[in-house]
């Protein structure tokens, strides 16, 4: 599409209509983060004594978990709270955008967790408390997204979704602690997770954390603006329909009378 003078630039052509100065800056930082994270995690950092190279999965697994379970779903909860207070469209869209990204990262947590579990525990699924509660959390937020897709009056839907966004975050912790309590009875300390990290491993770990937060921020900005565009598209088509009806009516009255 041809944009007006000020908005025409390279990255908009590449990243589309949701790009802005902020997304460019954060996007470049995230790319730089990934560019350094990959060699750090896959080549430069040493293998761990017990887990060997499987430890490398942790550099994406744990950041994904932090981003999904706390940052993304936390933003959803916060946005929902603010929306219920002042019906802010901004925070409503933000809550939706954040939950969707959270679900994607939640999927990464499960997949990398299972891939790590196979060489470490010998099985893909060990009923480890963290991974089990993450799986339930994923379903929990798939429910949130399902409610978001419902064919409802937008205000009603946003209100119900906001309520759901808040109690889902509370449920996240109820599920987490109940599953931990349950597993705590059956087995001792889960091996491998609380490994001592030192030097370069710790730095890689921290770098992965920063990189994933940047990726999350970049995705959130784009996804938020997508939500806004789709909202605009809906209202535009509604306005057009009304305008078309208005345009029809004088003709009709003119011909009819």
């Amino acid at each position, binding site marked *: 599409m041809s944009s007006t003078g000020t908005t025409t630039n390279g990255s908009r052509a590449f990243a589309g*209509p949701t790009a*802005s100065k902020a997304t460019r800056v954060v996007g470049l930082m995230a790319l730089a983060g990934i560019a350094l994270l990959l060699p750090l995690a896959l080549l430069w950092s040493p293998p761990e004594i017990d887990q060997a190279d499987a430890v490398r999965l942790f550099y*994406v697994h744990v950041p994904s978990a932090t981003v999904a379970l706390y940052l993304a779903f936390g933003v959803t909860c916060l946005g929902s709270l603010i929306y219920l207070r002042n019906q802010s469209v901004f925070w409503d869209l933000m809550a939706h955008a954040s939950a969707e990204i959270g679900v994607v990262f939640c999927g*990464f947590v499960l997949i990398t967790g299972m891939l790590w579990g196979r060489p470490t525990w010998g099985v893909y699924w060990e009923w480890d408390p963290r991974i089990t509660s993450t799986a339930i959390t994923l379903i929990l937020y798939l429910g949130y997204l399902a409610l978001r897709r419902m064919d409802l009056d937008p205000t009603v839907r946003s209100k119900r979704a906001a309520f759901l966004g808040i109690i889902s975050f509370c449920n996240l912790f109820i599920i987490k602690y109940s599953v931990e309590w349950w597993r705590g009875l059956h087995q001792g300390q889960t091996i491998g997770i609380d490994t001592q990290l030192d030097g370069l491993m710790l730095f890689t770990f921290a770098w992965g954390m920063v990189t994933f937060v940047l990726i999350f921020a970049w995705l959130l900005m784009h996804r938020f603006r997508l939500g806004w565009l789709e909202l605009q598209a809906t209202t535009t088509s509604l306005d057009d329909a009304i305008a078309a009806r208005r345009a029809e009516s004088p003709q009709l009255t003119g011909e009819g009378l």
Partner: protein
Amino acid sequence: MHWEFVIPGYLIVFGGIGAYTWTVLSRARSAAARVPEDRRTFLD
């Protein structure tokens, strides 16, 4: 050792981020096409 688990993990994570990004951006393009230029302003 265990690279057969590490490599697919990284491929899925970064491939997944790429695929999700592509979905968001292409959805944004088609949504933007339905919004007139003067309405394509953002809240932020």
